[in-house]
């Protein structure tokens, strides 16, 4: 059974445009609070607990959470669900890192500030290359997912749907900066939570637990194996992928800078707790496919297909498609806006100001930020429009991001290290991660990259270590 177009294109357009108008109006409203660079880029460094936790959780609920978590559950069973859910530990462990980030860089703007201060120009360059490649790819996969979702559920042609979702996110990010991103994330996180709970409850209501177990035991017995090999590997690999992604990416660092000092650790820990059950619920929906009599023909769409089947059986008709569309639209938008804001911050602060010594005084700031956001969006749009399958690029980047786990830990908590060895470990970790992903086993890319980088970073503490330079206050941008 493939995903049916359960609503007319007119309904699809209406749903997306109404949601888009709401987000843009809210972006304009919240954007009035954004005064100066700190206001626009870091929401005035005054974000509280509820908004902080909600934005972190909503950003981490990507289209992958809703689409890939079910695939992992379908193919790898209970361990598959837990493997995806283990990414929550990245958010939780970022809590103690956030405390150190706020103390070491109280005036910091981006993760690039940290890498430049701790690892010099070479470390900063390595970081920028890795994070821009990863962030743009992540953004493109979100845009592609949005386009495909609107095509599958609403019958909207891919290019139009992809352009629409990207445009909406660009508009409210342009108007409101991080204020708008965090504000909309809060509402989107509520919609995602309610949607997942409603669909999950409907699935549970329609399932007989005993019958489900018997069906899986008879037709998918390996899913119940405690020692399912690929699933076990996926568990550690996904966890390290999550660590690497959260620890290095400016999406999370900008939120740490934006939150009040005592709020940041609690918000990240709480967001991890809130996020943890979401991929499990989404995965459970996929495990119900067989017992519910849903034949899976495309694993990548198993979550929405089963959800649509269950909601349809509940007599929701076209409302089923609308509910799924709204939940998935929110999950995609909450990640696209964050990536647009955080990646454009890197371009403005690290490239325009840091590298080219650009001026951001007065009205120039808004113009430069606007150009940065539009540039990031344009690159993502072109790549998404070309139809290049960048999913493999994203998934193969596990070694890239996991190679940055230990350099971040060392830079935040250690007093000295051999910086050359640390950076050599990052390069070798990236290479090893790619080699293992493509040549040995996809589920060891992040694991192998993280292991190599960890080895070199630990070694750097004992082989000719030198003290880190004292942190310097970051100058104001305007």
């Amino acid at each position, binding site marked *: *059974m493939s995903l049916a177009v359960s609503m007319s294109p007119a309904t699809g357009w209406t749903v997306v445009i109404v949601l888009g108008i709401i987000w843009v109006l809210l972006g304009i409203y919240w954007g009035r609070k954004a005064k100066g660079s700190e206001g626009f880029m870091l929401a005035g460094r005054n974000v509280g607990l509820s908004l902080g936790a909600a934005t972190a959780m909503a950003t981490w609920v990507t289209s992958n959470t809703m689409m890939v978590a079910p695939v992992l559950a379908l193919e790898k069973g209970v361990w598959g669900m837990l493997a995806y859910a283990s990414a929550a530990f990245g958010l939780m462990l970022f809590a103690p890192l956030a405390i150190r980030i706020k103390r070491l860089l109280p005036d910091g703007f981006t993760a690039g500030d940290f890498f430049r201060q701790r690892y010099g120009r070479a470390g900063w360059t390595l970081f920028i290359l890795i994070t821009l490649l990863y962030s743009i790819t992540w953004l493109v996969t979100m845009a592609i997912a949005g386009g495909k979702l609107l095509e599958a559920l609403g019958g909207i042609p891919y290019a139009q749907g992809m352009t629409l979702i990207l445009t909406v996110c660009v508009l409210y990010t342009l108007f409101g900066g991080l204020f708008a991103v965090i504000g909309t994330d809060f509402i989107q996180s509520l919609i995602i939570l309610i949607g997942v709970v409603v669909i999950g409850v409907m699935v549970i209501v329609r399932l007989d637990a005993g019958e489900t177990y018997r069906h899986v035991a008879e037709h998918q017995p*390996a899913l119940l194996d405690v020692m399912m*090999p*690929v699933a076990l*590997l996926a568990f550690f690999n996904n966890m390290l992928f999550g660590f690497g992604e959260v620890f290095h990416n400016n999406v999370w660092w900008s939120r740490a800078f934006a939150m009040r000092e005592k709020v940041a650790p609690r918000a990240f820990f709480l967001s991890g707790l809130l996020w943890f059950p979401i991929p499990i619920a989404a995965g459970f929906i996929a495990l119900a496919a067989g017992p519910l009599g849903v034949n899976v023909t495309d694993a990548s769409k198993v979550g929405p297909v089963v959800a649509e089947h269950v909601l349809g059986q509940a007599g929701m008709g076209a409302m089923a498609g609308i509910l799924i569309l709204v939940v998935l639209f929110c999950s995609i938008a909450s990640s696209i806006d964050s990536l647009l804001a955080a990646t454009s911050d890197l371009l403005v602060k690290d490239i325009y100001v840091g590298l080219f010594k650009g001026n951001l005084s007065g009205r120039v700031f808004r113009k430069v930020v606007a150009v940065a956001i539009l540039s990031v969006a344009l690159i993502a749009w072109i790549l998404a429009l070309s139809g290049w399958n960048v999913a493999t690029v994203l998934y193969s980047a596990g070694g890239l991001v996991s190679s940055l786990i230990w350099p971040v*830990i060392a830079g935040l*908590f250690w007093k000295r290290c051999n910086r050359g060895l640390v950076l050599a470990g990052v390069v070798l970790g990236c290479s090893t991660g790619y080699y293992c992903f493509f040549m040995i086993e996809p589920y060891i890319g992040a*694991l192998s990259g*993280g292991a190599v980088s960890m080895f070199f970073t*630990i070694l750097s503490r004992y082989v000719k270590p030198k003290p880190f330079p004292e942190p310097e206050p970051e100058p104001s941008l305007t």
Partner: protein
Amino acid sequence: MGLRATVSWLIFASTAFPLVAAEVQFLVEGDPDAPIESNSGVVALEWVPANPDEAEGIEFELEKSETADFSEATVLYRGPDRSTILTGVRAGDYFYRVRTADGGRWSKPIRAEVEYIQRGRLFALLGIGLVVVGLTVAAIVGGHFKSSRESS
């Protein structure tokens, strides 16, 4: 990731099987006699009726057996879809065949070999994973408490 047994219509029609041999056939990639290999317990199957233009609305029946003669077979699917993805398949050899659900002739069986990663390699990799995750968590928690003590 399981092998997706798929190929374009043209290649299939010209090289794989003579369409008159059966009413339904599996679509296979590469050598039609080679088994599907999977190291993840995922087996993807795709089939096509002999005459697709007149096949609208027909239903299919897919069977699985652990023996080539299908002496003990299980019906896996009955319906209009022309593909399925089987997951959670334990290690071993399996045979699949398909036909139209109205009692048509069975297709030529297709064999799937499911073999997971060797246990020795698996445990070595899991050991590395455990060490890396354990040390990472320990470094963060330890670093946090040490820096908290120093700052207080």
